[in-house]
C-alpha cells in the first residue's frame, strides 16, 4: 500500500512520458533471484525512459532500429537492439568490475583505474558489517596505513586517526574530512578535556555514507594543499538514483558491558593492608579494622559505576528520481547509554540531497543535513579514577539512603553520587548545506560553482549541587552554561575539461579557486546562589553573583589550485597538481605557501606484450608519486602579542596572554610513494602494495617551555608556537583481498590489511633539542615523554628499575678492579630507614656517576606500534553472511599510569590487589636488640622471590613510584573486533512480500582482546588528543563490549 502511494507520488512529482514511435516493447527485468523493481530502461540516444514496476515489468516505445539500455544499481548494464521483438526479457548480472569503480578525489572523481596516487576505499558493505556509531570506527583495521584509536570509550568520544604515522608534533594530527566535496574541520581538540570527548565526526550518521576514500599519499592529497598533511578522508553520502523510489529501514538494538574489570582490593584486603601501613607508621591505625575477619567485602566501586547499557538505532532512507532529477532523504536516531553511570549519547540526523538537470547544459544540486545530539559526560576520567581509588570501606549510600563519603578529605569524592547529582552534558546542533551549479560550456568543458555552509551550535550545561558526602562537602551551588557557535562557509569555482582524443589520449584538466571563512564565538555564563538543587537554569541563580564572558575568532583561507591528468592508451598515466594557499593565521609575509605534486602510473597489464597473460592478470599497475602538503593547525593570533583582560580588586587589569612568534610559517610535508596494484584470476586476488617516505619540515609546535620562563600557573602567558624542526615517516602498506572459495552458493572472502610505519625526528631547532611532556596528577608533575633528534616522537621517558635491595649485600658491588663500591643511590639519599633501605628499588645509574639523578632518566618505551593489521573473513552461503574481523597492533608500549597510584603501596586510597604483595622485611637474627636489630645488615626481604613491589615506608627519599619502566607495559594486542552474522531472506520470497530486501543481523563488537596489558584496554589513544602524549593511560573510559541485533528492510 505504502509502495503504491510512493509510486503515485513519484509519478505525480516527476511526470515522465515518452513520445511515441510505432512499437511498444514490453518485458521483465530480473536477476537470478527474480524480478528487479525500479530498474531503468532507456532508449539509447534519446531522453525516453521507463522504470520497472513491482513485478519487474516495463513497457517502452521504440523503433526497431533503436537500442534499449537496461541498467540497475550494482548490476552490469545491458544493451539490446529492439529489432522485431515485442517482448524483451532481460536478466541482469551483478557488476563484478570493481576496476570501474569511481573514486572520489579532490574536486572531482576518477575511475579507479585512472588513479595514480595511493587511495584506499571503504565501501558501504564494510560500514554495515561493523555496525558503527561513528564513521571513524569503520576505518580501524580496514584501510592500510590508517591507524585508529579511540581516545575514550565514552559514547560519542573522539578517536585518534593517524594516516601513515604521526606527521605533526602539535595537537591536531587529525586528517581533514571532505564530505561530498566540503571540508569539515576536525575541530580544535579541546585541550582542557583529557578525553577529547568532543568528536565532530560523531555528528555524521554512518548509515548515510556510501563510501570513504582515504587519500594517503601527497600526490593524491596535495590538491587539498594547505590542510592535507595529515591526509584526507573523502566521504560520499547517499544520493538519489534514477528509478523507482527505494525505501530502506535499518535498525538495531543492543547492549554494552564492561569488557574487563580491574582486580581491586575488597574491604578485607584493604583493611589488612591498612593495618600493615599503620604498623609501619604511614597512617594512624583505624579502630574499625581491628578485626579484619569480621568485615564484609565492602563496596565494589567498579560494580557500582559500571552497568549494562542499552543502545538503539533506527534509520530510514528514501532514494529515487527520474532522468531529470534525483533525490535522497534520510533520517536517523541513535540512543546509546554509556557503560559508566552518567554517560550517554543521543543523536538525531536528517539529511536530504537533490540533483537536477535544470537545462541540457546546466546541472544543479542542493544538499543539507541536520544533526542534533546530546552527550552526557558525567563520567569523565576523574570519575573513573575516583571510583577505582575509592575505599571499599565507604558505602555508595548510607543506611538512611543518603550518599556516603570518606572520612579522609584526601580520598576521592563519591563518584556515583557525583555523576548522579551533577549535571554535565552537551547539546550540539549541526546544520550543513551545500549547493552547486555545473554548466557544460562545450563538450567536455564544465564550470562548477559551489557554495557550502556549516553551522554548529554547541551548548554545554553544568550544574554542581551542594552536597555533603562524609567529610567532603560543597556549599556553593553553581550553574554554568557555555555556548559555542561556529559558522563556516566556503565558495569554490572549478573549471574542468575532460576529453578523449583518438581513443587513446585521455585528458582531465581542472583549475579552481576557493575561499573559506570560519567564525567561532563563545559565550559562557555562570551563576551561584541557587535556592535549591531542583532548578538549574542560570536565571534561577543570584544575578549579582552571575558572570558572563564571550569571545569571537575569525580565520580565513584563500586558495588557487589545478590538476592535469593525461593518459595514453590506458597504459601511461600522469597526474600533476599545484595549489597555493594563503592563511590568516600567519603574519603578513608568511601567509602564502605552494603545494605541488606529480604522479606517474604505468598499467603494465594493458601493454600489448601482456596480452598472453590476460587470463591470469586482470590488472597490473605501478604508481610513483611525489607531493607537498601543508599544515596550519595552530592557534589564531599566535604571531601577535596579546593582552588578556583580568578582573582585579581595582577594576580590570591586563596580563600578557601569550608569547608571540611573528615569524611563524607553514609546516610542510614532502612525500614520495611507490605503489603496485595487482588483480589476478578474474579479480579473485587483489593485492595492493605501497611504500612511502615523508619528510615534514618546519614542524609547528606550541613549545612546552620550562617552568622558569613562567610558563605554568594561573598568571602565566601561554607558550609560544614555533616551527621547530623536521621529522620523517616511512613505511609500507599491504592489502590483500581474496575470494578463496566461490562455488555452490558458498563464498569465502578474506581481506588482510597490514601497515608498518617508522617515525624519526630528524632535527629540532630548540636549543634544548628535546621536547618534554609532563603530566600532572595532584601535586606530582612528572616528565612522561621525550621527543628528541634521532628517535621517534613521544618516547616514554623515565628511570629504569633494575632490582630491589633485598639484603645488605645488594648495596655493594665489586668493580672491575675488585674494589667494593656502593650501588648508586638517589642523589641526597643514603642507607637509612627514612632514605633508601632494604625493600626499596634499585635504579639504573645510566651515566655511571655513582648517584641516581635526573641524568639517569632514559628512554623506557615506545608508544608507536611496529605494525598494525586487520584480518577480515566473510563467509556467505545463500542468504547467510558471517564476518569475523580481527584487528591488532604489535610492538607498542603503553604507560599504565594508573598503577603509579593504584599500586602505590603507601597510599590510603584503594589499591589493586597486587599492591598487597609488597616487600615484607624480616630479621636475620631475631635475638638482637635495639639499634643492632634494626640495622640494615640484620634485615632482608622475606618474600623476595614472590613479590616485586617495594616496602611499606613511612617516608623515603628513594621515590619508589617515580616514573619508571615499571609502569611501561607491552601494549600489543589482537582483538576480535567484530563477529557479525547476517541473513538475507531469499529475493523471490521477499519480492512476494512486495519488498526488495530483508536482512537480519547480529553483531558482537570488541568481543575479546588478547593482550599482556594489565589496564582496562590496550587501545589507549592520545591524552588531550596530543600526539606527544600517545599511549598514556590514566583513568581512560574503557571501550565496552557491544552486542547488537538488527533488521534491514528495503522496498
Amino acid at each position, binding site marked *: 500500500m505504502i509502495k503504491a502511494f510512493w509510486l503515485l507520488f513519484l509519478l505525480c512529482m516527476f511526470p515522465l512520458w515518452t513520445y511515441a514511435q510505432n512499437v511498444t516493447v514490453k518485458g521483465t527485468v530480473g536477476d537470478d533471484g527474480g524480478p528487479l523493481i525500479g530498474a531503468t530502461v532507456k532508449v539509447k540516444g534519446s531522453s525516453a525512459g521507463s522504470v520497472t514496476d513491482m513485478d519487474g515489468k516495463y513497457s517502452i516505445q521504440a523503433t526497431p532500429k533503436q537500442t534499449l539500455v537496461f541498467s540497475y544499481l550494482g548490476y552490469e548494464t545491458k544493451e539490446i537492439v529492439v529489432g522485431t521483438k515485442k517482448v524483451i526479457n532481460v536478466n541482469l548480472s551483478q557488476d563484478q568490475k570493481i576496476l570501474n569503480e569511481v573514486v572520489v578525489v579532490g574536486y572531482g572523481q576518477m575511475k579507479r583505474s585512472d588513479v595514480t596516487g595511493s587511495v584506499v576505499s571503504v565501501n558501504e558493505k564494510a560500514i554495515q558489517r561493523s555496525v558503527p556509531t561513528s564513521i571513524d570506527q569503520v576505518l580501524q583495521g580496514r584501510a592500510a596505513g590508517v591507524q585508529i584509536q579511540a581516545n575514550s570509550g565514552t559514547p560519542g568520544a573522539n578517536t585518534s586517526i593517524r594516516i601513515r604515522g604521526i606527521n605533526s608534533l602539535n595537537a591536531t594530527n587529525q586528517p581533514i574530512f571532505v564530505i561530498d566535496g566540503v571540508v569539515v574541520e576536525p575541530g580544535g581538540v579541546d585541550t582542557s578535556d583529557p578525553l577529547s570527548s568532543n568528536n565532530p565526526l560523531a555528528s555524521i550518521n554512518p548509515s548515510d555514507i556510501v563510501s570513504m576514500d582515504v587519500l594517503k599519499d601527497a600526490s593524491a592529497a596535495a590538491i587539498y594543499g594547505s590542510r592535507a598533511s595529515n591526509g584526507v578522508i573523502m566521504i560520499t553520502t547517499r544520493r538519489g538514483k534514477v528509478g523507482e523510489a527505494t525505501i530502506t529501514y535499518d535498525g538495531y538494538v543492543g547492549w554494552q558491558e564492561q569488557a574487563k574489570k580491574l582486580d581491586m582490593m575488597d574491604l578485607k584486603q584493604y583493611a589488612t593492608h591498612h593495618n600493615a601501613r599503620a604498623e609501619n607508621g604511614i597512617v594512624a591505625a583505624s579502630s574499625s579494622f581491628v578485626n579484619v575477619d569480621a568485615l564484609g567485602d565492602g563496596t565494589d566501586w567498579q560494580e557500582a559505576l559500571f552497568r549494562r547499557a542499552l543502545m538503539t538505532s533506527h534509520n530510514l532512507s528514501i532514494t529515487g528520481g527520474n532522468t531529470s532529477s534525483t533525490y535522497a532523504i534520510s533520517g536517523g536516531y541513535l540512543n546509546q547509554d554509556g557503560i559508566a553511570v552518567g554517560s550517554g549519547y543521543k543523536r538525531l540526523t536528517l539529511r536530504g540531497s537533490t540533483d537536477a538537470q535544470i537545462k541540457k547544459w546546466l546541472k544543479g544540486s542542493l544538499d543539507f543535513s541536520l544533526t542534533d545530539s546530546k552527550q552526557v559526560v558525567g563520567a569523565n576520567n576523574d570519575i573513573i579514577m575516583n571510583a577505582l581509588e575509592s575505599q571499599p570501606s565507604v558505602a555508595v549510600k548510607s543506611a538512611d539512603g543518603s550518599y556516603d563519603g570518606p572520612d579522609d578529605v584526601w580520598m576521592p569524592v563519591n563518584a556515583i553520587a557525583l555523576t548522579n547529582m551533577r549535571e554535565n552534558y552537551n547539546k550540539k546542533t549541526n546544520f550543513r548545506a551545500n549547493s552547486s551549479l555545473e554548466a557544460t560550456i562545450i563538450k567536455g568543458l564544465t564550470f562548477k560553482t559551489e557554495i557550502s555552509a556549516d553551522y554548529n551550535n554547541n551548548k554545554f550545561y553544568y550544574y554542581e549541587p551542594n552536597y555533603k558526602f562524609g567529610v567532603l562537602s560543597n*556549599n556553593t551551588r553553581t550553574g554554568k552554561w557555555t555556548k559555542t557557535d561556529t559558522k563556516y562557509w566556503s565558495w569554490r569555482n572549478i573549471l574542468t575539461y575532460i576529453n578523449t582524443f583518438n581513443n587513446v589520449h585521455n585528458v582531465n584538466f581542472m583549475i579552481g579557486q576557493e575561499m573559506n571563512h570560519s567564525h567561532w564565538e563563545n559565550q559562557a555564563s555562570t551563576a*551561584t546562589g541557587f535556592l535549591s538543587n531542583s532548578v538549574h537554569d542560570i536565571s534561577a541563580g543570584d544575578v549579582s553573583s552571575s558572570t558572563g564572558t564571550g569571545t569571537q575568532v575569525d580565520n580565513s583561507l584563500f586558495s588557487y589550485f589545478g590538476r592535469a591528468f593525461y593518459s595514453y592508451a590506458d597504459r601511461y598515466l600522469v597526474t600533476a597538481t599545484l595549489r597555493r594557499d594563503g592563511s590568516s593565521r600567519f603574519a603578513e609575509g608568511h601567509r602564502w605557501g605552494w603545494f605541488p605534486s606529480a604522479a606517474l602510473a604505468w598499467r603494465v597489464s594493458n601493454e600489448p606484450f601482456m596480452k598472453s597473460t590476460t587470463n591470469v592478470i586482470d590488472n597490473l599497475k605501478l604508481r610513483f608519486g611525489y607531493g607537498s602538503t601543508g599544515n596550519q593547525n595552530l592557534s589564531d593570533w599566535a604571531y601577535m602579542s596579546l593582552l588578556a583582560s583580568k*578582573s582585579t580588586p*581595582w577594576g580590570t587589569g591586563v*596580563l600578557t596572554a601569550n608569547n608571540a612568534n611573528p615569524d611563524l610559517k607553514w609546516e610542510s610535508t614532502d612525500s614520495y610513494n611507490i605503489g603496485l596494484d595487482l588483480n589476478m584470476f578474474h579479480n579473485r586476488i587483489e593485492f595492493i602494495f605501497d611504500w612511502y617516505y615523508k619528510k615534514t619540515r618546519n614542524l609547528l609546535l606550541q613549545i612546552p617551555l620550562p617552568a*622558569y620562563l613562567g610558563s605554568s600557573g594561573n598568571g602565566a602567558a601561554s607558550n609560544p608556537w614555533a616551527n621547530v624542526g623536521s621529522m620523517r615517516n616511512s613505511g609500507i602498506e599491504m592489502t590483500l583481498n581474496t575470494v578463496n572459495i566461490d562455488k555452490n552458493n558458498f563464498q569465502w572472502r578474506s581481506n588482510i590489511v597490514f601497515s608498518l610505519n617508522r617515525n624519526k625526528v630528524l632535527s629540532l631547532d630548540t636549543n634544548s633539542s*628535546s621536547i618534554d611532556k609532563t603530566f600532572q596528577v595532584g601535586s606530582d608533575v612528572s616528565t612522561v615523554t621525550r621527543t628528541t633528534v634521532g628517535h621517534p616522537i613521544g618516547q616514554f621517558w623515565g628511570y629504569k628499575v633494575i632490582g630491589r635491595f633485598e639484603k645488605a649485600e645488594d648495596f655493594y658491588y665489586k668493580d672491575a678492579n675488585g674494589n667494593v663500591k656502593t650501588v648508586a643511590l638517589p642523589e*641526597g*639519599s643514603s642507607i637509612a630507614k627514612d632514605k633508601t633501605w632494604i625493600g626499596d628499588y634499585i635504579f639504573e645509574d645510566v651515566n655511571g656517576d655513582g648517584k641516581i639523578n635526573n641524568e639517569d632518566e632514559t628512554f623506557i618505551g615506545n608508544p608507536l606500534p611496529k605494525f598494525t593489521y586487520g584480518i577480515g573473513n566473510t563467509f556467505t552461503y545463500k542468504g547467510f553472511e558471517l564476518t569475523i574481523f580481527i584487528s591488532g597492533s604489535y610492538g607498542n608500549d603503553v604507560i599504565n599510569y594508573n598503577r603509579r597510584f593504584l599500586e602505590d603501596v603507601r597510599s590510603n586510597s584503594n589499591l589493586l590487589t597486587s599492591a598487597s604483595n609488597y616487600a615484607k622485611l624480616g630479621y636475620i637474627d631475631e635475638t638482637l636488640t635495639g639499634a643492632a636489630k634494626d640495622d640494615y645488615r640484620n634485615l632482608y626481604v622475606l618474600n623476595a622471590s614472590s613479590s616485586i613491589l617495594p616496602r611499606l615506608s613511612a617516608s623515603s627519599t628513594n621515590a619508589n613510584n617515580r616514573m619508571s619502566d615499571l609502569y611501561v607495559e607491552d601494549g600489543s594486542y589482537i582483538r576480535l573486533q567484530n563477529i557479525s552474522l547476517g541473513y538475507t531472506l531469499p529475493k523471490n520470497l521477499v519480492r512476494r512480500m512486495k519488498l526488495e530486501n530483508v536482512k537480519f543481523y547480529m553483531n558482537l563488537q570488541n568481543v575479546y582482546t588478547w593482550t599482556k596489558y594489565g589496564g582496562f584496554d590496550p587501545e589507549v589513544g592520545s591524552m588531550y588528543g596530543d600526539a606527544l602524549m600517545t599511549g598514556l593511560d590514566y583513568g581512560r573510559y574503557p571501550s565496552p563490549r557491544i552486542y547488537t541485533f538488527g533488521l534491514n528492510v528495503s522496498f
Partner: protein
Amino acid sequence: MKTKILFIAALLGTGMMTTSCSGDFLNQQNTTNLNQDTFFDSDEAVSEATSTLYNYVWNSFNGKLYYSMGDGRSNNITAQWSSYIKVYTNFNETSLSDGLQEGWASLYSVVAQSNNVINNIKYKSSSGVSESAKTQGIAEARFMRGVAYWYLASLWGNVILYENTSSLVNNYVVPTNSRADVMEFSIRDLEYAAKYLPEVSSVAGRVNRYSAFGILSRIYLSMAGLTTDGQYDGKNVATDFNRGIRNTYYLDLARKAAEKVIDGSSFKLMTSYGSLFKIANNNCSEDMFQLQWLKGSTDAIGWGCNQDISSFFGWSTMVSDGTNWGGATCCSWDLFNEYETGDLRKHESVAAYGDSYADINVKGGGYTYGVTESASTNGANIKKYVVGTHDDNGVSYKQSSGINTHMLRLSEVYLNLAEAILGNSESTTDAEALKYFNAVRTRAGLDTKASISYEDLRHERRMEFAFEGLYWYDLVNRAYYKQQEVVNYLNNQNRNRTYKYNSDKGTYVASENAGTGVATATASNLLLPYSDADQNKNSYLKSNSTPAAYSFGAREVDESTLFE
C-alpha cells in the same frame, strides 16, 4: 544559448573578482584581546598592566609555597599526610617531590610577567603616557620581580636571572647565576622601586616607596650574610658559612631602610594583633604589601584571583567553606610550646582546645575548638587565615575566602631594625632597637625586654609571623654566617611529632614516639633541588654546573643618596 553564455560569463566574472581581493580576505580582526603594541596609550593603561601583578601571578605561590616553605620547612607546621608539606618538613625532598616544580614555577611566573610589564612600558608606550607614569609603572613591576628573586635566591640559591621573557623564549638553555648575583639583582630592583614609587599609594593596597624600603630592610639583612664587607662587587662573596659575622655595610643599609619607613611613612601598627587577620582589615595601616585577592566564588571570579590558603588551613566546613584540607595540617609541637604564657598571638595563630572564636559559627553562637567539633588528633590546627564561612562573614566562598595575604607588615620592619642595630654584637640595649622591638611585644601582651639578643629576635619573629610564610627565610639568613648552628637547630626541632589534647590532664600531650620519617638535616638541606622536569629541559640546572656571572649594567640608583 545566449542565457548560457551570459550565465557562465557572470559566474566566471565573479570568480575572477573575488580572487583580486584575497589580501583583504585574509586580514582578520582580533575582537577579544588587547594588542600589546597599541594598548599603552595612557597613564591608566600602565596602572592596569601593573594591577595584575598583585594577584594572578602570585596565585600558585600563595596556594602552597608560601606556607609549605615558609612554615612547613621551618617546622612551624606539622602536616603528617600532606605530600607537599611533609617531605619538606622531614627533609625527604628530591627533585621529584610533589609541589617542587609548582613552587619554582610560581615565583618565575612573577618574574616573567613583571618582565613583560617592564618591557611593554619601556618599548610600547605611546606619547600619551607620561614619563612619571612610566617610571612608576616600571618601579612597581620591579618591586614584584625583586621580591620574587629574593624568594628564589633564598630557596634555590643559584637561579636564572633574566630581564626579557620573550628573548629567552627562543633560547632558554642558559646557565644559572650565583646566589649573590641574584640577591644583588633583587636589591637593584627594589632600590629602583624605592626611588621611583610614589610617596603615598595611589590606591589602598598598591605599594609605595616605603613598601620598597621595608622589603629592602629584609633583603639587606640577607645580603649582609652573603657578603664579607663593603658594597657587593661580584668578588666579596662570603665563603665561610660559619664565620659568625655579617657585612656591616648591608647591616647599616638595613637599618637606614627601616628607619626610612619608620620616620617617613604613614604605616602604623594595628592596636590589636587579631584585627590583622580579618577580611574587613585588608590593606590596613600596618600592611605594607599584601597580595590582593578578589572577593566572590571562583565560579564568578574565576581561578587565579582567589584566596585559597583558607582551604588548606581550614579543618572543617564549619570554619571554612567547602572542602578543607587542613584537618591534619597543624601547628608543630615545637612551635606550640615556644609561645610564652600570655602571648595574645597564640589564640589568633593556633586553634587549641578550648579556644573560642565568636566570629566563626556565628549562627550557632560561636565556635569553641575541640568542643563545637572534635579536635584534630594530630595537634592544634592553624587559625591564621581561617576566617569562617560565608554565613559568618558574608564574603567567603569555597577556595576563595577573600582575605589578603600578608607579604610585609610594619612589625617586620621594626624587628628588621632591631636586628640591624644588633648587628654582629651578642646583644644590644640600644634604645631605638628596644623601642621598636618592645612595641611588637607589648601589642602581644608581653613584658618588655631591656636587652635583645639574636635568640630574642628569632623567637619574636617566629611568634609574630607564624604561618605568614617567613620563618624558613629567617633561618636561611642566619645560615649564611652561622650554618652549623642552624643545622643543629633544625635537627632538634622535634619534627613531625604529633600531639593531642588529653582531657584527663587538661593539656596537650605529645605522642610517645618521635615523629616518623624525619631525615637528619645537613647543610645541603638549606637549598632545594631543582625540579626534575626543568632539569630535563636545561642541563645547566644539573647539580654540578657552575653559575655564570651576571653582567649588571651601571647602577641606576646610588645607595649612598637613596637614604638622604
